[in-house]
């Protein structure tokens, strides 16, 4: 029983990303936030808890700064906080191994996370975790309710909303939908401050995090957008038509 919610700390979607020496310069990022789809997972996990499905265990994997997203989760209602402390960059399989070890440790039978992270957008964590834990997996859901050991989830299907029924244990990855995120309040923030964070290393979890099979060789900024071109007066019509035909290939 219980819901594990996986939270990834990412640069805020509004943060400016600087590149230095072929790498993202983390010191240039002024604001880190919980990846937005993970926030929907968190909100739904808390709703599930309120409907009686055990405690919410918030789990994050990342460097020391990532602890902030656990405290934020505690401020809106997460009960237990697990921080898998990692310093080097890990590939998806390693992250999934670490997270599944932590989920096992937590004893939760429902796992919720965003359908993809706002930084890497790979979307592999949920399905990968389900595979390594042997849990069922339903992707891209917008809401989940439970009746005993059976969960029903809503997701956007090809022809409208789909209601999916699935037995626990299972993993849900979340899409935005019309979920409204709750706001923290002062009482929650003050309680969160007192909530202990279980800090675990890969060694504690018995996972080898030393050899990534996949590594990022370099980062670079996307090419700068070309400035727009301005045409004035009717005499420029032939030129515009020519450009639309030859350069933009739209007519």
């Amino acid at each position, binding site marked *: 029983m219980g819901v594990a919610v996986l939270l990834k700390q990412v640069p*805020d979607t*509004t943060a400016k990303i600087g590149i230095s020496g072929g790498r993202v310069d983390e010191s240039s990022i*002024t604001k880190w936030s919980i990846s937005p789809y993970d926030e929907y997972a968190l909100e739904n996990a808390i709703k599930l808890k309120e409907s009686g499905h055990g405690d919410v265990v918030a789990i994050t994997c990342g460097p020391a700064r990532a602890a*902030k997203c656990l*405290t*934020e989760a505690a*401020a809106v209602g997460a009960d237990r906080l697990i921080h898998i402390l990692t310093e080097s960059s890990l590939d998806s399989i390693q992250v999934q191994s670490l997270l599944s070890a932590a989920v096992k440790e937590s004893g939760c039978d429902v796992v919720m996370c965003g359908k993809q992270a706002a930084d890497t957008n790979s979307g592999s964590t949920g399905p990968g975790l389900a595979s390594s834990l042997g849990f069922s997996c339903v992707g891209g859901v917008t809401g989940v309710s439970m009746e005993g050991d059976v969960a029903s989830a809503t997701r956007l299907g090809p022809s409208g909303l789909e209601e999916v029924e699935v037995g626990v244990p299972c993993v849900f990855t979340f899409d935005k939908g019309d979920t409204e995120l709750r*706001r*923290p*309040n*002062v*009482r929650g*923030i*003050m309680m*969160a*401050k007192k909530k202990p964070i279980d800090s675990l290393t890969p060694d504690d979890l018995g996972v080898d995090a030393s050899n990534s099979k996949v590594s990022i060789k370099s980062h670079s900024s996307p090419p700068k957008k070309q400035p727009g071109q301005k045409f004035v007066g009717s005499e420029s019509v032939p030129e515009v038509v020519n450009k639309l035909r030859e350069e933009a290939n739209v007519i």
Partner: protein
Amino acid sequence: MAYEALDFYDIDSLLTEEERMVRDMVRDWVEDRVLPNIEDACRDGVFPDEWRVEIGEMGILGAPLKGYGCPGLSYIAYGLICQELERGDSGVRSFASVQGSLAMYPIWDFGSEEQKEKYLPGMAKGDLVGCFGLTEPDYGSNPGDMITRAEDKGGHFLLNGAKMWITNGTIADLAVVWAKLEGEIRGFIVEKGDEGFSAPEMKGKHSLKASVTSELVFQDCKIPKDRILPDVKGLRGPFSCLNNARFGISWGAVGAAQSCFNSAREYALSRIQFGHPIASFQLVQNKLSWMLREITKGQLLAYHIGKKKDDGSWIPEQISLAKMNNVDMALEIARMSRDIHGANGILDEYPVMRHMANLESVKTYEGTHDIHNLILGRHITGIQSFTREP
């Protein structure tokens, strides 16, 4: 573009995690709820009731007070709350200042146990709104000569007189009213619906339009004997409330200034004249750099007086300096920002003209700019110059 608050000297690094979280919570709320609706609220001249509810739900009212359902945050956190609310609008910060510092605080500090139990938990949640009646039509900077009187009629008190410029007055469930009882200033709690009490709204403001401003009228207003604040006599009562409110204003003004600076910077970078962004011109850069300099100084003043409030080592004159300086700074920045925006600066598409008009009130209320100068003058010379009397 997302809001990035000016923080040139990295005040952020001096805050506790709890303070940052409270600040971010209020900042997000202002972003989501105040900014999209503030111009309509101003045009309609209303303080939307859902803001009261949501501010109450966030649990930020009476921020530094402890016990009786109050948040018990640091003064720095209280300052940050004011800063973020006033980045939205001075009227929203005024609502919280009056509720927390002027209505809850005197009950918390000078009230009886029963009064605290009765009012504070509801006020902290925003379920009960309070206001503060000190200023009168003829007595603003000189409240000591107030006319409002209370008479002890044996079984009850009888209040007579009128108060003016009372924020939250018409929407308030209770008013903390200062009146003379046998020649001595005392605090009384008057409840909405008490016989002989009315609170008509003052209309026609060009400033703080999203804030309710009222008169309080007492015509043989009868209140029970247990509504007097037992633990304070004289001007010390209202003045201790004002110290807390002025402290909040010194932070709030920084928020308004940050908003004006941001808008000016963005506008200057995108506005092209003579083939170049106006931000590339030296006169504009000079203005932006002056704003940065003044806001940074104001932030440091606010932060330091916040630390002194937290450790109890402050004196009222230090709060006078911070209130006076920061509001003056914010008003100048609002004007300069309007100037950078050119004609666009008068439109409600940008926040600057609204902040400017608001700050004219903020400069005057809670001790006018000049009165704070006199407070400091007395501190420097030992000679009071408020009155001609020796």
